Structures are given as structure tokens and as C-alpha cells.
């Protein structure tokens, strides 16, 4: 209980103060007060919705931004961009990280497979004792056999 309380208190403190310690304001802060951040560097993450010559549309969490950049991106790519905010939901890119659609989806596929492998491995070695509500080591068949042999002796 103490550990959970400590976690909740720290999480609340983090959440209350994080906006003052960011390298750049994020989309959440920008959308809450757009005019305040015009002319400043901000960071926006999202998915490429459309491409054009010298710019592309980035669909974020709260809206769509026009990113002024010559970077080669394709529709569906996941992009994080740091750039100077301009009026009319425009951003002149300063730095950018582009993750192609397929590669970013494959991260989730690999992670899902890993999760299944891990769950199987865990329950091969450990079991949940519902009566005592604790996790105990699973006895190996060899150990069980040795134990029953000893009992017979």
C-alpha cells in the first residue's frame, strides 16, 4: 500500500510539473494556447496525412499541421518534428524523425510476439497459487519424480 501511495504521489508531482521542464512545448500545450507559442520552437508528433512539394500534412492528436520541410515522407509515416510554430497551424521544421509506416507497425508486432513468449516462459517456471494468492515456483517433473521416489523409499 505504501509503495502504491508513493507511486501515486510521485506520478501526480511529475504530471503537475512536467510542462515546465520540457525541451519544447508539445501539441497539448500548443493547442491549449496557440498564440502564446507562435514564433517558438515546439514539437509535434503524428501521422503523415498528405504530402505536397516542400510540405506535408501531419495529423496530430488535436489537429492537423502543415509541416514546411523538404524531407521525403510518405502517407502513413509516423513523424516527430521540432520546428518553429507559425500562424495557421504551420510549422517550419528544424529537426525531424521519420519512421516509415511498416517499420513502426512491426515494432508492435514484434513486441506482441515477445509478450506471448514471455507469458509462456513465465508460466512454465512459475504458477499462481489462488488459495494463498501468491506466485510460487512450479515444480519440475524430475523434482516431483524424485520426491515421490523418496516417499516410496
Amino acid at each position, binding site marked *: 500500500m505504501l509503495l502504491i501511495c508513493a507511486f501515486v504521489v510521485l506520478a501526480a508531482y511529475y504530471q503537475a510539473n512536467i510542462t515546465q521542464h520540457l525541451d519544447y512545448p508539445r501539441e497539448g500545450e500548443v493547442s491549449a494556447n496557440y498564440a502564446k507559442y507562435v514564433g517558438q520552437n515546439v514539437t509535434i508528433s503524428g501521422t503523415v496525412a498528405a504530402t505536397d512539394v516542400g510540405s506535408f500534412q501531419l495529423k496530430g492528436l488535436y489537429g492537423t499541421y502543415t509541416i514546411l520541410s523538404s524531407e521525403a515522407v510518405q502517407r502513413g509515416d509516423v513523424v516527430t518534428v521540432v520546428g518553429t510554430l507559425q500562424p495557421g497551424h504551420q510549422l517550419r521544421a528544424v529537426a525531424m*524523425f521519420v519512421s516509415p509506416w511498416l517499420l513502426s507497425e512491426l515494432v508492435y508486432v514484434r513486441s506482441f510476439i515477445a509478450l506471448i513468449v514471455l507469458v509462456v516462459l513465465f508460466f512454465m517456471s512459475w504458477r499462481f497459487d489462488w488459495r494463498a494468492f501468491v506466485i510460487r515456483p512450479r515444480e519440475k517433473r524430475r523434482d516431483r519424480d524424485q520426491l515421490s521416489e523418496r516417499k516410496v523409499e
Partner: protein
Amino acid sequence: MDWMAHIAFAFILCALLALRWPVFGGRNTVLVMIGAILPDIFKVYLPLQVLGIYAQDSLALFHIPIGTLLVCGVCALFFEEGTRVRVFLLFALGMATHYALDGLLIHVSGGLRLLWPLSWGAWQLQLVRPDNWLGTTILVAAALLVYVVLKIRNDRVGRAERTQDEMSSDV
């Protein structure tokens, strides 16, 4: 970095440590592997985001060492008494491998707040792309290689011990 890379790295580390300290081997290896993905409970914010719930900042503590240590402590409490400290330490080792790998990643802004709440500083080595598949493939291949080599080695050692036992019982 994906979870496959994290658990493969934790497995390799445990397999090598178990050569010297058997406590890292056997069923304890899987605890280190679980510890290696515990910080990414934070990623629950992604499905929540799809549902329209913005919880990235609320859940961020999961992906900060102090927060992950508290999670390791809570998870260790689910294990039977007498093993909890060891389970906690194994989870914590897994957690350390997670941050070691995540520290290599490229981020446009921000990074790992390793010393929070002492410092709000964020660090990142900017070496590996987060969507990198080659690194994962190398780690998984290395984990399989280590598994096969150690299995052959353990089988040989076991066979030699059995032969020795049989010889001594004959005498």
C-alpha cells in the same frame, strides 16, 4: 525499442551471469526478462489515446527508474515470502537492462529522465533508431546461439557427472 530486443538482451545477460552465479539461471531468468519490460507499462497510454484518454504524463512515472523500482516492489509482493527480496532484485536488474537499451535510442527531443526526481535532465545517446529491426534480429539470434551453446555444455557436464556417479557407485 521493441520488447523482443529487451527480453533477448536480458536473456543473454542472465545466461552469461549464470555461468558464474547460478541464481541468474533457471526460472529466475524469466523474472529478469519481465523486469526488462516493466518500464513499458507506460505504453498503456497508446491504446488509451485511441480511446480519447490522454494519460501520457500520468503514466510517465512507469518509465522513470524510481517509478519502475516501486512497480518492481509491488510486483515482488505477489511472490511467496522469503523470495521477495531476490525477486525484487531480479526485476530491478531487468529494469536496468531496459534503460541501458533505451538509452541508445534516437529522440528528436526529450529522453530518459534517469535521475528524476533529483533532476529533470533527460539523456539519450542518439545511436539507434527506435524502429530498428536489425538490432532486434541480432539480439534474438545471439540469444538463440547462447541458449544452444549452453544447452550443449550443460548436457555434456550432466552426462560427465552421471558417468562419474555410476563409476563411483560401481567401486
